[in-house]
């Protein structure tokens, strides 16, 4: 059952200290700014955040980091020209960092959502990022074992939802959101538009409502 919330604050209510939170977006495209702002107001601390980047400039994920609510971040590309909030926390030893290849980040969340206990990938073989991980020869090639990333909560944004939680996205703002929606116990979505069931083309739904727990419409 998908709950249509009346505010972003309602949508993020109940997120516990110590939660693992998936945060959608690639840079700022698809980042759920309103949900993050609400999470800052809500105040959950000691969070593990999984997101492609570690925040840009001073808003969105960067603001959550600046609020001191994140103890660990799992991402593929923290270092950016405008990642100064993360950079300072990291150099000050105030945040733990796990860097994962972007494809592993995506595939590990997909695995969590798909009931896969682990998978073998060629990505990272022979590199620092595979150190300490199990490797295995399959058909003459070396693979690394990667494990799922499951989460308590996913915060994502989409373009339009119907009231059953079916989602469509817009252009490259889609990025990680559909995968994250499958990997979290509770998926919270900010959308620009909410429509009635039947208004979305069933052939074009990207995230079926089964993956969506809470929706809030935000001004675009």
């Amino acid at each position, binding site marked *: *059952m998908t709950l249509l919330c009346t505010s972003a604050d309602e949508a993020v209510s109940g997120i516990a200290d110590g939660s693992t939170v998936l945060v959608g977006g690639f840079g700022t495209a698809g980042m759920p700014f309103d949900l993050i702002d609400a999470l800052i107001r809500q105040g959950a601390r000691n969070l593990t955040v999984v997101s492609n980047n570690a925040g840009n400039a001073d808003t969105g994920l960067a603001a959550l980091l600046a609020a001191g609510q994140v103890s660990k971040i799992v991402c593929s590309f923290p270092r950016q020209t405008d990642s100064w909030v993360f950079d300072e926390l990291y150099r000050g030893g105030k945040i733990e960092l796990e860097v994962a290849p972007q494809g592993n980040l995506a595939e590990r969340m997909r695995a*969590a959502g*798909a*009931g896969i206990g682990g998978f073998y990938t060629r990505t990272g073989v022979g590199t620092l990022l595979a150190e300490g991980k199990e490797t295995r020869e399959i058909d003459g090639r070396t693979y690394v074992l990667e494990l799922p990333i499951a989460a308590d909560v996913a915060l994502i944004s989409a373009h339009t939802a119907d009231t*059953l939680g079916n989602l469509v996205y817009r252009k490259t703002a889609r990025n990680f959101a559909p995968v994250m929606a499958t990997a979290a116990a509770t998926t919270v979505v900010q959308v620009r538009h909410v429509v009635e069931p039947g208004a*979305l083309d069933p052939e074009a739904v990207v995230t*079926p*409502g*089964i993956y969506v727990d809470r929706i809030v419409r935000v001004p675009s």
Partner: protein
Amino acid sequence: MSVVSPSIVEHTDRGPLGRDEMARVLAGDIPPGAYVNLGIGQPTTVADHLPPESGVILHTENGMLGMGPAATGGAIDPDLINAGKFPVTELPGASYFHHADSFAMMRGGHLDLCVLGAYQVSASGDLANWHTGEPDAIPAVGGAMDLAVGAKQVFVMMSLFTRTGEPKLVKECTYPLTALRCVDRIYTDVATFEITGNQVVVRETWGISFSELCSRVDVPLEVGERHVH
């Protein structure tokens, strides 16, 4: 203060449930708004007892959520079928997806419930429903193993006895297994059962008393308790 009373309901003033009645009893236990997969064969008939206002959303493993009733006449579309390969319809809010996404949905634990037929269920919830084990049988598993391990709850729907009177609720399955310790409830013509831990609890009987049931099934049966305030 609370009083503990047995929670079983015995309908001994009537005969066993018919197939349609079984489907209705099971349908009544499906929570509103649940995402449900109904296995091929008898479980499919449960859909006939789910009113639209229940908000139950049906999944079919061949790539659809929001499946509607069977299609008839001009509404029959060869591109729109259920897992049993019968023509069905589409409800508002439906979505289509490919097979890997459909089974990821199932295997990833997103379906609230599936309903499956069975040859046998063991006292610990092991399920056998895909293979008679006979040497000349052609094995065919379909999505049964995926559903059995993937759905949050597995309800089985079957007659309790074979035509020759052998119980299908058994200590250990003798048919090849579909999945281990996966069944949560069993809906039969003469009783409904709940498998909790290693107990098999009888919730309701039809045309048979609890004590007679115990004598005909080679599995220890319990009566549930209800706390009455």
